[in-house]
Every structure is written in C-alpha cells, then in structure tokens.
C-alpha cells in the first residue's frame, strides 16, 4: 500500500484529505487512481496532453521521479509519495 501525501493547495479536491492510499504499483497508476477517485484534481496535476504540469513535482521518498523512472517508477509497499506544488505566498496583487 503506497501513501500519497496531498499538499494543502490540492486538498480542496480530495475532501480535505492530506493523504491518499492506493494499491498501485507504480507512480502513474497511483496518480490515475487518485484522479479517478477525485476527478476535480486531474486538471491541476496534468496538462491537456496528459503530462504532469511543470509546477507540480512528484517525489518517491526523498527522490524526484525525474531522477528515477518518471511516472513508471515502481512503488514498493509502504512507499511514501509526495506531490509538491510551487507555492508563492499570500499575494493580494495577483
């Protein structure tokens, strides 16, 4: 069972849940599983061509999946996966 940690800005699409558990055995399946159970999160994770968005990074343990096998990175049981988005602060100027 892999555990996916959901960052604060995306929790409004997971019913405020900060973690998501899945039997998925690789990162792609884990993210697909998440998006199936919480469809509104999909557009925040993937662009129109299905690629992970450039302001979202995914880490397996402490390693960026780009340094592993990308979304094909295999997940051992009990792996912790993190979604880390760019956050800027609380501007009122945007």
């Amino acid at each position, binding site marked *: 069972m892999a555990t996916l940690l959901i960052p604060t800005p995306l929790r409004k699409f997971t019913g405020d849940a900060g973690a998501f558990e899945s039997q998925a055995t690789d990162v792609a399946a884990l993210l697909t599983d998440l998006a199936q159970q919480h469809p509104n999160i999909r557009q925040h994770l993937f662009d129109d061509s299905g690629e992970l968005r450039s302001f979202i990074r995914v880490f397996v343990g402490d390693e960026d999946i780009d340094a592993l096998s990308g979304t094909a990175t295999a997940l051992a049981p009990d792996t912790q996966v993190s979604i880390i*988005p760019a956050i800027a602060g609380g501007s009122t100027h*945007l």
Partner: protein
Amino acid sequence: MDLSNAELARYARHLILPEFNIEGQKKLKASSVLVIGSGGLGSPLLLYLAAAGVGRITIVDFDRVDDSNLQRQVLFGMADVGRPKVEAAAARLRSLNPCIEVTSLDTQLTSENARELVASHDLVADGTDNFATRYLVNDAAVLENKPNVYASIYRFEGQISVFNALLPDGTRGPNYRDLFPTPPPPGLVPSCAEGGVLGVLPGILGSLQALEVIKVLTGIGEPLSGRLFLFDATTFTTRTVKIRKSPNNPLTGEQPTQTELINYQEFCGIGLAGEREASEPEIQEIEPQQFLDWRETGRKFKLIDVREPFEAAIDSLGGELIPEGSVLASLDRIPREMDVVIHCRSGVRSARVIRLLEAEHGYKNLVNLQGGIVAMNNLATQ
C-alpha cells in the same frame, strides 16, 4: 574587519560558540544581504539578521503597513499602520542594532533594477508573496552568481531551500528553475481570497531562512542546497526532498536559452489584456465614481457583496451578502430583470463570480465594481 567593544559585548553569545566565534562574527559584519519583501517572512528574517550582526542589510518593499499585516508581520506595531513598510522596518532594525547599516528602498523589485541590486550584495533572501517576483529574484541571483535563500508559505505549509549556492567544487547548486521551470497559470492555484495563512507559520519559515542566510555567510555547517525542506504545521510533518539540476533549465541547463531578465508579469500571465481576452470573456464593469453616480441619481440596481461575512463586518457598501462559495446556491437572490452590481474587496472574486454566472447560468445583467471596496475607499479619501 575588527569589532568594537560594544560589538564584542553585544555578540558575546556568538563569540563563545566554538564553531562560530569571532571569525564568524567578523564574516557577518563584512557581509551584505538584500532582503526582498518585509512582510510575514521578511519580519523574522530581518529581525534575526539585524540582531545577529549582518553588516549591511538592504530592504526592498513597496507596500504600506496595513492592520491585517499585524497578525504575522512582527516587525510592525499599531503606530506603523499606513507607513511604508521599509521605513518602519528600517527604523525598527536600527533601534535593535545600531552597529549595522540598514538601507530601505520603498520600491518594487523589477527587471530594470534587480540585477544591479543583487550584484551589490553577497546574498539575496526571497521573502516575497508572488510568483513573478520569485522568478525575477531567482533569475537575477543566477545571472549575478549570488546565493538565493528562498522560503514560501501557503496556509499551514511552508517550503525552504538555498538556491544557487556556491559548492565546494566551485560550481553552483540547483536553483528555483530546476525545481519549477514555469509558474502555474493564474486561476489554476488558489487565489489570495481562498488562501490565508496561520500567522506563526511565516515566523517559523522566516526564522529558518535567517538560519540559512547566516550559515551561508559564515560557511558554518551544510546549507540547504540541493534540498527542499517542507513543513506541514497541521500534522507537524517535516520532509526534506532532493532537488537536482535539470538539463532543461533555461538559465543553467545544457542549452541555456535565457541570458538576461525577462518580463515576469508576462511570464506569469498577469495583467495581460490580450491574454485575458483570449482565456476569459470580457465582463461589464463600473468604475467607483460611476457607481456613486448611479446611487446619487437613484438608478435602480441591486448590489451584491460576494466577500466573506467577517469582511463585510469591517466595512460594507450596503449590498446583500452572498459569499462567493454560496452564490450558486443563492441564484434566487440574484435577479435577471435589473442591473446587478457585484463587488468584493478588490474586484477579483466578483469578476470570477460574474464569469461563472454568465457561463453557467446565462446571466447578462451583471456588472463588476472595478477595484471593489478598496477602490471605493480610495475614492472617498481622495
């Protein structure tokens, strides 16, 4: 650079730290730091850098102190409300430590002034609150070969790293563009209105930032280079993940495509009329003066306030309160047969509500109050 007797007394607890001692203190005194932003992160950051004895500190901010800042911006007090932040901040730092030099710049960091400012300091610390300035600070630091101590917060969550650090082998560590090559487009991340922040959180992250600044300047320990530290205050969870250099980094990758600063507002998709027209339909708007005219001439219209109840409790234009989140459940209170003026604090939420109602419910009689209640108040004080 020698220390005076007053300085030796002031920094005594540093001087007896074996790893720090008088050498570390002298390095701090000889150092200069450019701090961008004197808000939630900048407050503890500046206080600790000044207290620690960083010889020269320059503060850049264009904002004024507001009541709503005091919940987290511990540099300021009630008497500072309305003052330029840099002016109040510099006064506070000088009273804290007269042995250092503090320069305040009541201006916005821009592509025109950023490189020169960064180049004339040893290190830049990014305590800003928006993506455009974060990319600007990063790129200027990379182009001028300066370390950039970065921290960022959102609600209960914070991130910190040291970008572009000088490594023992003479190369530079990863920078912000290695982590996030491009910013989120506006609208895809929650806006300020939905944001909010627990006041103590920037206190924690800004203090960590001060720690890393002091480590980089004195060469003590291992700076947080090539790593991103994450803190979730709700669960007290901390994580440190690795940041690697990306071959696609436009500044430092295998085939750099950017050799100077760019227009960061455009890069972040902000304030582009053309862009907005392409992605978002035009809406009808009314200026504050015109709104007053409508009221004075007795024109028939309904006014709706889409802010939260706590905001309306502070000041109100007398409109019917339907907070943004409950608009769709309150369509029966939004007439179609007369003009309906919709407002919020600054005009952003009300514009979003109008677009939603037009697109999904066919409304054609909605008018956005430009600049919201802030603009109305500005008009009243002119």
